[in-house]
């Protein structure tokens, strides 16, 4: 479950050591934008050490490495791979070939380090026009690709448009990304909301993302996490409905009825699977029945 994903600068010890207390379902150790070129080496050692020694139980760990067009990314992988982050985040993923390049090096590194092949997944950061248009190819490029994340700051620069709080300029990208991820059967997470002071704007932005089908949302400030977690948790209405669906299914099975209807609506397989997901998530959150 990743309702919220928090970016933490890879060279900031005070934050790294508290990563599991900030309220994020997953934390993203950032070796890319948050680290200046002359600190890349120190940051990857620091991130490796914190992954090795800190107890992040209960919080997912993701490392954002540098993009494959830099001289840093292979060293990033070499340093952190052994310490089992859940996912490696690949920035500026633009096409299937980008995934192939990362995939090949991850396999090589796993082989060299003697760790399980294919053990680490990839979360592709989609933040270019090309990436949006090829999102489905990227999502299906490898079994390692577990999720897509939208990066709207770089994307809007690429699109030559202004980034606004309302987010009209990224409506297409959001919808396209959700569709691509769903078609490929993987998760998809929304871009961070960048105004740290605007709690209300943040909540609205998260609600838009949830309504579009995103599984969760990334954040650059811990202040946003509570609202994100709340928005992406099953609401009581959703949960009640999910239990009703499951009750109806059970009753229908007991009575041997073939077709199940609830509130005048046919219950088909997708509705049941969605209800099961909602209940599973609620149970994980400790709010199930």
């Amino acid at each position: 479950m990743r309702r919220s994903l928090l970016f933490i600068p890879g060279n900031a010890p005070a934050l790294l050591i508290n990563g599991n207390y900030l309220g994020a379902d997953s934390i993203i150790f950032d070796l890319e934008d948050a680290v200046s070129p002359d600190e890349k080496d120190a940051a990857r050692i620091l991130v490796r050490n914190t992954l090795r020694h800190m107890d992040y139980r209960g919080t997912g760990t993701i490392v954002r490495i540098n993009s494959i067009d830099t001289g840093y990314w292979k060293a990033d992988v070499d340093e952190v791979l052994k310490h089992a982050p859940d996912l490696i985040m690949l920035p500026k993923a633009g096409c299937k070939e980008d995934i192939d390049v990362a995939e090949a090096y991850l396999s090589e590194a796993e082989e060299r380090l003697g760790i399980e092949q294919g053990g680490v997944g990839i979360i592709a950061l989609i933040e270019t026009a090309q990436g949006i248009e090829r999102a489905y190819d990227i999502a299906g490029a490898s079994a390692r690709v577990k999720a897509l994340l939208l990066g709207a700051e770089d994307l809007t620069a690429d699109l030559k448009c202004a980034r606004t709080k309302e987010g009209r300029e990224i409506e297409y990208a959001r919808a396209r990304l959700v569709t691509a991820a769903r078609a490929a059967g993987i998760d998809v997470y929304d871009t961070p909301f960048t105004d740290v002071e605007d709690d209300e704007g943040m909540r609205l932005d998260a609600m838009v993302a949830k309504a579009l089908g995103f599984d969760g949302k990334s954040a650059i400030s811990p202040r946003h996490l509570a609202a994100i977690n709340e928005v992406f948790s099953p609401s009581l209405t959703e949960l009640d409905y999910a239990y009703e669906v499951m009750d109806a299914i059970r009753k229908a099975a007991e009575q041997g009825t073939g077709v199940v209807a609830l509130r005048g609506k046919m219950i088909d397989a997708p509705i049941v699977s969605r209800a099961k997901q909602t209940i599973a998530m609620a149970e994980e959150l400790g709010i199930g029945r």
Partner: protein
Amino acid sequence: MGAIIRTATAGTFESSDAYVEVGPGRGSIDLSLESVVEQQFGEAIRRAVREVLSECGCDDIEIRIVDRGALDCVIKARVEAAVRRGGMN
């Protein structure tokens, strides 16, 4: 084992971090430590530093550390970064 070639630094003076300066030694490990938790953890810190130096294969170094209450894994990372930056022969 090896000796540091040139002076280099790593880390910061911020709380929970440590600032590490390394340079060519005089045939051994010459460690000076200034720490806000010297009384409580001075020994533990020195032990951690020596551990990293040994892992890096370094036994000839002058190393100065200003510790602002960094956890062991942070100090070790800063020492390792400084040593790598300093280079060894």
